[in-house]
C-alpha cells in the first residue's frame, strides 16, 4: 500500500471544495473544458493523454537528492531511516532497502528500529526539501511538455499527447522520463491514461499502465484498491465496512446513493477519473527566482564553516539555473540569528555566474569580513532574476576564449577581498588638462557612471581613433601624480636638488569655462639621480612650481 505519511500529506486528487466552487487560485485550467456538454471542448479533452509521475519514496529520495547536490555520498552504508521531527521524531516515516532487510518498516517506533539495527542512520524529515524535489521534477517535466501540473506531495502530471511524436512514441518518451528522473535519484512510477486522475491512481497503485483510449478505462480501473484514491480516511473505512474495497466496487454502487451517503467529492473524482467530468489543473509555473533555506544544527558562528554550510544551497541554485540555461548576477544571503536582526550579505556580480564554486568563493570573502552579532541559526539564499547567459562557443585552440572569460571572475574575486573600489580600468577623455584627459573606467556593468556627456562622445571617439594610430601628445609621462606636488624654487625648481629643465615649455591653458581654469607651462626636467620628471609652472599666483608626473 503506497501510503505516504498521511499527517502531512494533503490528500491528493480530492478537491477540498464542492465541484461548483473550484479553488479560486487555480489560474490556467488545464484538463479540458468547464463542462462536458461543450462538444468542442469535450473533443479536445478526449484527445488528451496524461502521464502521471508518482514518487513512492519521495521522503528518502528528497534527502538523498539534497545530499548529492551537496556533493556528499547519497547512500549511507548500512541502513537509513527518516523520522518526522514535528511528530516528535519517534516514528520511522521512510526507510531504505537495507533497513527493510533488517526488518524495519514504516510506522515503526524509532526505538524498535534502533533495536533491530543499531547502526541505523536516522535523518530528520525536511518538508522544504521535499517540495524542492517536486519542483525539480516538475521543472524537468517542462522539458517534455508545456502542460505540467503538480500533485503534492509526491506526484507530477504531464499532458503529453502533443509530445509523443517528438520523442518517438510512448515507449521512448516513458524511457526518457524515467532515465532523467533516475539521474535525479528518483525511482518513479509512471502511468499514462486519457485522464489525469486515472493516471495518478494507477501510478499510486504501482500499476505502470499505458492506456490510450477511454473505452477500457473503467474495467482497468476496477481492480485498484480504494487507497490509491486518497479519499478521506473515514469514507474509505466506511466503504470497506460495506464490502466496497476497490474502485470497481465503487463504480457498481448506485450514483444517487453514493452521493447522498458520502461527500460529493467522491462521485466527482470518480467521474473525473473516467473522463465524465472535466478535471481542470493548475499549470505549474517554474519559480522565476531561486529561494532556499537551510536550518543549521548546531548553530554556527565561525564564518569559515558558514561558507561550507552555504555550499549545498549554491549547488541547488546552480542546478536551478542550469535547467533554465540562465545565470545569476545578484544574490542575497541572509543569516538568521536567534535574537539579533538578520545579517545580510549582498553579492552583485559583474557577469552572470553559473558556477557554484565561483559564487562560493566570493561569498566566503564577503563572509570573512562580516561581524556576526550572534551564532547563525539558519541560512536563506535568494537569487536575483535569472539572466540569460550567452553560451560561449569554444575555440579549438582555446587560448583567447579562456582569457577573456576569466576577467570578470578575476575582478570579482579581487573586489570581494580588497573592496569594491579596489579595481578599475582606464579610459581616455578628449581634454587638454592632464588631470582630466584620463579617467577611471569602472569595468563590467558599471559603465553607466561615466562622467562623459553624450555631446562629448563623438569627440572622444575621434580622440580614441587618433590615439590608436599616432602618438597624440608626444611628451607625456607614464606615471601621473594624482595631486600635483608643490616644489620649492624660483626660476629653477628644486626636488632633492636643483632640477635641470630639458624640454619645454609646453603651454596648457584650458578650462576657463568650468571653473577649473588651468594656465601652466610644462617642462621635462631631470633630477640629479637621473630621473625624468614632468613639472609645471603656474602662469598665475606667483608662478609656483609643481611636480605632476614621472617618466617611468
Amino acid at each position: 500500500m503506497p501510503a505516504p505519511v498521511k499527517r502531512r500529506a494533503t490528500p491528493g486528487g480530492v478537491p477540498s471544495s464542492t465541484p461548483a466552487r473550484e479553488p479560486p487560485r487555480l489560474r490556467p485550467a488545464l484538463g479540458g473544458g468547464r463542462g462536458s456538454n461543450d462538444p468542442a471542448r469535450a473533443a479536445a479533452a478526449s484527445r488528451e493523454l496524461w502521464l502521471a509521475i508518482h514518487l513512492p519514496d519521495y521522503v528518502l529520495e528528497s534527502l538523498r537528492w539534497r545530499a548529492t547536490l551537496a556533493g556528499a555520498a547519497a547512500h549511507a552504508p548500512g541502513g537509513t531511516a527518516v523520522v518526522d521531527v514535528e511528530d516528535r521524531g519517534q516514528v520511522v516515516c521512510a526507510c531504505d532497502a537495507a533497513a527493510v532487510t533488517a526488518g524495519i518498516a514504516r510506522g515503526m517506533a524509532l526505538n524498535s528500529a534502533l533495536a533491530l539495527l543499531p547502526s541505523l542512520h536516522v535523518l530528520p524529515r525536511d518538508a522544504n526539501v521535499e517540495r524542492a524535489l517536486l519542483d525539480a521534477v516538475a521543472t524537468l517535466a517542462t522539458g517534455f511538455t508545456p502542460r505540467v501540473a503538480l500533485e503534492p506531495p509526491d506526484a507530477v502530471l504531464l499532458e503529453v499527447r502533443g509530445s509523443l511524436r517528438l520523442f518517438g512514441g510512448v515507449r521512448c518518451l516513458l524511457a526518457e522520463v524515467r532515465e532523467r528522473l533516475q539521474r535525479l535519484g528518483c525511482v518513479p512510477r509512471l502511468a499514462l491514461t486519457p485522464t489525469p486522475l486515472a493516471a495518478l491512481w494507477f501510478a499510486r497503485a504501482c500499476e505502470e499502465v499505458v492506456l490510450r483510449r477511454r473505452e477500457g478505462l473503467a474495467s482497468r480501473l476496477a481492480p485498484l484498491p480504494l487507497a490509491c484514491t486518497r479519499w478521506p480516511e473515514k469514507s474509505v473505512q466506511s466503504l470497506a465496512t460495506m464490502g466496497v474495497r476497490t474502485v470497481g466496487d465503487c463504480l457498481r454502487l448506485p450514483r444517487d446513493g453514493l452521493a447522498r451517503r458520502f461527500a460529493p467529492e467522491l462521485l466527482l473524482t470518480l467521474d473525473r477519473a473516467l473522463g465524465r467530468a472535466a478535471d481542470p489543473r493548475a499549470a505549474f509555473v517554474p519559480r522565476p527566482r531561486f529561494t532556499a533555506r537551510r536550518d543549521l544544527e548546531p548553530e554556527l558562528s565561525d564564518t569559515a564553516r558558514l561558507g561550507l554550510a552555504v555550499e549545498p544551497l549554491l549547488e541547488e541554485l546552480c542546478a536551478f539555473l542550469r535547467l533554465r540555461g540562465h545565470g545569476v548576477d545578484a544574490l542575497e544571503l541572509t543569516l538568521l540569528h536567534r535574537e539579533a536582526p538578520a545579517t545580510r550579505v549582498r553579492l552583485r556580480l559583474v557577469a552572470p555566474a553559473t558556477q557554484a564554486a565561483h559564487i562560493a568563493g566570493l561569498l566566503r570573502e564577503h563572509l570573512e569580513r562580516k561581524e556576526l552579532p550572534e551564532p547563525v541559526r539558519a541560512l536563506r539564499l535568494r537569487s536575483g532574476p535569472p539572466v540569460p547567459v550567452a553560451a560561449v562557443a569554444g575555440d579549438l585552440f582555446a587560448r583567447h576564449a579562456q582569457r577573456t572569460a576569466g576577467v570578470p571572475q578575476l575582478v570579482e574575486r579581487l573586489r570581494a577581498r580588497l573592496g569594491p573600489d579596489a579595481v578599475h580600468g582606464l579610459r581616455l577623455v578628449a581634454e587638454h588638462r592632464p588631470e582630466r584627459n584620463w579617467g577611471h573606467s569602472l569595468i563590467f556593468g558599471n559603465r553607466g557612471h561615466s562622467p562623459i556627456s553624450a555631446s562629448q562622445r563623438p569627440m572622444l571617439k575621434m580622440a580614441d581613433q587618433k590615439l590608436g594610430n599616432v602618438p597624440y601628445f608626444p611628451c607625456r609621462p607614464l606615471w601621473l601624480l594624482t595631486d600635483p606636488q608643490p616644489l620649492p624654487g624660483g626660476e629653477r625648481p628644486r626636488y632633492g636638488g636643483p632640477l635641470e629643465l630639458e624640454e619645454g615649455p609646453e603651454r596648457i591653458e584650458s578650462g576657463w569655462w568650468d571653473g577649473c581654469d588651468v594656465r601652466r607651462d610644462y617642462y621635462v626636467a631631470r633630477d640629479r639621480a637621473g630621473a625624468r620628471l614632468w613639472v609645471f609652472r603656474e602662469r598665475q599666483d606667483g608662478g609656483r612650481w609643481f611636480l605632476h608626473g614621472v617618466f617611468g
Partner: protein
Amino acid sequence: MASLDDLLRRPDLWRARERGGTTSQPPGRSTGYAVLDRCLPGGGWPTQGLIEILTDRCGIGELSLLMPALAALGSEEHGEGWIAWIAPPHQPYAPALAACGVDVSRLLVVRGQPAEWAMEQALRSGACSAVLGWAEFRDHRALRRLQLAAEQSRSFTVLFRRLRDGDEPSPAVLRLALESGPEGLVVRILKSRGGHASTVRLGRLDPADWASAH
C-alpha cells in the same frame, strides 16, 4: 615513461645540459631594445616565469623598458589578454600608455593589500597576458608561490622590488637591477636562467619613439 615526459616538460626543471647553453632555450618575446635582446637567452623576455626588476627610483625608465613588450602583447594572435597593474606606486597615465601603443581599454589597475595575493589571483585566473606588480616580499615561500604561478600561467609577469632585495636569493627566472647612469638607463642582469650575468647600457629610452617607428 609518461611521468618522465611530464617531468621533462616542466618549465621549472633545469636540465644540466642546457645550463649555460642556449640550445633549446624557448624563444623569448622581444624587449624592443636590440642591445638588451642580445644579452638575454632566447633573445628577449622569457615567456614563462617571474621577472624581477629591482630599482629604487621611479622615473629612470623602468616602465619604458617594458613598454614595447606590453604594446606587442595586444597585437599577438593569442593576445587579447588584459594587463594587470597591481599596487602601482603612482597612477598609470592613460594618454602616455596609449601613445606607446598599449590598449588602454584592457588595463586593470588594482589597489590595496596584500598585493602578492592579488598578483597570484591575476596569474591564476588566466585572464591576464601581463601582470605587473609592486610588492614587498618578506617571505621567501610567498615569492616561490608567485614564481610557480607565473610559470604555469604563461603571462608576462614582472615584479618590481627594491635594489637591496637583490642580495637575497630569488626563484625568479630573470632579475634585472636598474640604475641611472650619466647617459641614461643602465641594466645589470643579476640572474638569468640559461644566460649570463652582464651589464647593458641602454641610454635614454623613449617608448613613444619606439611606437612611432613601428
